[in-house]
């Protein structure tokens, strides 16, 4: 007995000194790196997604598996090179094993590349380009927001049948904008509509007068717009200024509530796709109320794409960590997340994490901005479409980043 006890003591001391490695279980906080815009064109969108993440974290008391969760923030400045550099620092210096965030799809691609290289789980929260789950789909990367294929297909039929068949495109000239127009053009052809023209606008455009004058005289029935951020707020004002609505309908392939909200009533006229609307049901209304109490100075006084995706991403990650029973084995958490279904996502359709492209599939909303609305209920919901009904099939998107493939 005494000999055995002595051996236990020796082994324990050796483990303590590190000569025999102790089991790899961390006891410290679980660090999640948040790579999100804090400045620039999408600064306010970034603030919303971070607020959503915080909401989800607070709902579980800031802990999972008994360990506190610590968010380590970094500004991506809506610049892929800056984002990649800062993410490396988050991983190499701060030691994060999870990353979350991202509004610009170009930034999402850059961050995804680093995550894949460093084997860190990354959930891109608000990038909508189909490239993120397509040609840039990666084993370590998940995408929370519906991509442009889902958004456009979720509304194109309604637009073709109710708004008109001659389409003119305004494209925000980068990855996401090009993605939206690409899918709108594909849907247009399927639905028997015709293209009247396209104008690509660089990011940072504030004056759209020239473009709108051309569009006004184009003979189009519908202007299909894929444009966001500060540029978009100026565009929305100028659409009304140039009386575009008198000549044709306007359909946004994706609208952020935070872009529409500050406008005068007369400027709120387009049809639009949105990932979520605060007034869909009692749960979304209750969440909005809670959010407004917690973040009274938020850029957006309601549940919107940004804060919803931040909230959903955090919720799914924490649920996966809990289900996997570990916050250290990233591979196990990825495999656990694949195929998960989240029913308490506030929506009529549950969120499903598709394994082969790592997309979160929920639902999308087609709405019409209402110039007569008062308060925050500024949209009229026209249709709600489950994402899995309109998402790309594996045949259309032949990727496989699942654990099974690996």
């Amino acid at each position, binding site marked *: 007995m005494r000999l055995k006890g002595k051996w236990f003591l020796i082994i324990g001391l050796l483990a303590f000194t590190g000569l025999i490695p102790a089991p790899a279980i961390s006891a410290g906080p679980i660090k999640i790196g948040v790579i999100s815009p804090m*400045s*620039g*064109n999408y*600064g*306010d969108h970034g*603030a919303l997604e971070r607020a959503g993440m915080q909401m989800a974290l607070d709902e579980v008391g800031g802990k999972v598996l008994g360990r506190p969760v610590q968010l380590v923030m970094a500004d991506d400045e809506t610049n892929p090179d800056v984002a990649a550099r800062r993410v490396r620092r988050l991983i190499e210096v701060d030691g994060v094993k999870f990353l979350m965030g991202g509004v610009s799809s170009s930034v999402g691609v850059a961050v995804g590349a680093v995550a894949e290289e460093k084997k860190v789980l990354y959930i891109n929260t608000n990038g909508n380009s189909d490239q993120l789950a397509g040609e840039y789909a990666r084993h370590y990367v998940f995408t929370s927001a519906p991509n442009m294929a889902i958004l456009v297909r979720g509304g194109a039929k309604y637009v073709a049948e109710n708004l008109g068949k001659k389409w003119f495109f305004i494209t925000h*000239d980068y990855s996401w904008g090009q993605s939206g127009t690409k899918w709108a053009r594909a849907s247009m052809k399927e639905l028997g509509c015709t293209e009247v023209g396209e*104008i*690509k*606008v*660089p990011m*940072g*455009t*504030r*004056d759209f*007068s*020239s*473009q709108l*004058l*051309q569009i*006004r*005289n184009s003979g189009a029935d519908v202007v299909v717009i894929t444009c966001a951020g*500060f540029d978009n*707020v*100026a565009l929305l*004002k*100028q659409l009304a*200024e*140039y*009386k575009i609505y008198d000549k044709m309908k306007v359909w946004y392939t994706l609208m952020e509530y*935070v*872009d529409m*909200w*500050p*406008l*005068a009533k007369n*400027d709120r006229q387009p049809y639009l796709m949105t990932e979520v609307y605060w007034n869909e049901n009692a749960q979304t209304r209750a969440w909005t109320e809670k959010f407004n109490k917690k973040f009274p*100075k938020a*850029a*957006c006084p309601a549940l919107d794409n940004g804060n919803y995706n931040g909230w959903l991403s955090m919720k799914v990650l924490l649920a996966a960590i809990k289900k996997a029973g570990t916050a250290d084995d990233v591979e196990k958490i990825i495999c656990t997340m694949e195929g998960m279904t989240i029913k308490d996502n506030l929506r009529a359709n549950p969120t499903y994490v598709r394994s082969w492209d790592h997309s979160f599939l929920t639902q999308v909303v087609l709405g019409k901005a209402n110039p007569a609305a008062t308060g925050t209920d500024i949209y009229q919901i026209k249709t709600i479409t489950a994402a899995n009904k309109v998402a790309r099939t594996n045949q259309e998107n032949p990727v496989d980043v699942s654990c099974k493939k690996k």
Partner: protein
Amino acid sequence: MDSMLFLSLLLNGISLGLVYAAVAMGFSLVLGMSGVINFCHGVMFAFGAYFFWILSGYIGFWPSVVIVPICVAIIGFLIERLLIRRVYGLDPLFGLLITLGFSIALEEIIRMIFGPASHNVSAPSFASGTIIIGNFVFSEYRLFIGLFAAIMLGVTWFLISKTNFGAIVKAGMFNSEMVGTLGHNLPKLRTTVFILGAALAGFSGILAAPIWSIKSGMGSAILMPSFMIVLMGGLGSIPGTVIAGLLVGVTTALASMVFPRFVDIIPYVLLVIVLYFRPRGFFGEQNIND
């Protein structure tokens, strides 16, 4: 191209060009008088828009147009006294770097105070309509801002060209030390010019707010085009600034018909062309290398 469409684009370009020229004018006066490349100038533009957004809801359009530039001028006064004064006579790069850093800090302060979201202010009711004649479309508000910017430039021209104060300022642009040696209060003169420049930027912010919406980064968007216009027009030259502003505005408006993806580079292309043939700009008296 349809002639009415062309006319609409042309007038839009002129209107926008005059606003750019009004912003650039303040920049040019400070640079010419003090030798300081003041990158805080864009933030003055943003302050003008924000103060207008706040005040116009309470006191209306015209009282705001009077009060807001005074508020921005006060901020300009404080910046000149606390910051700009320290870089007079030094390499212009010091002024550029210090004012650039300070402008980034000021943008953050704006964001902290007013929040990250965009804010909206509508065009005044007397200029909220649109003139439509066939294919000719022109916003009443853009007509208004074009005229207002032209008046601002006209008043500035009168001040600089036809008054004693203006004569001293012009002399100071040529040789500021000599002006000081001749008994004029050079520091006070520089402060006055800086305040004038800030007020011009503030006015321009008021004009732009209803068409561009208001956000903390809006100053950065106007700064580089203004700098290009200053260099193209020639340091301290009002006619040069107006011509360069109109050139940028009209060329950008018309170029969007031909290559809309590349309109952002137009001011830079124009700058290279102008400076290649005229290093002093259109009507400058100093070479930019000096």
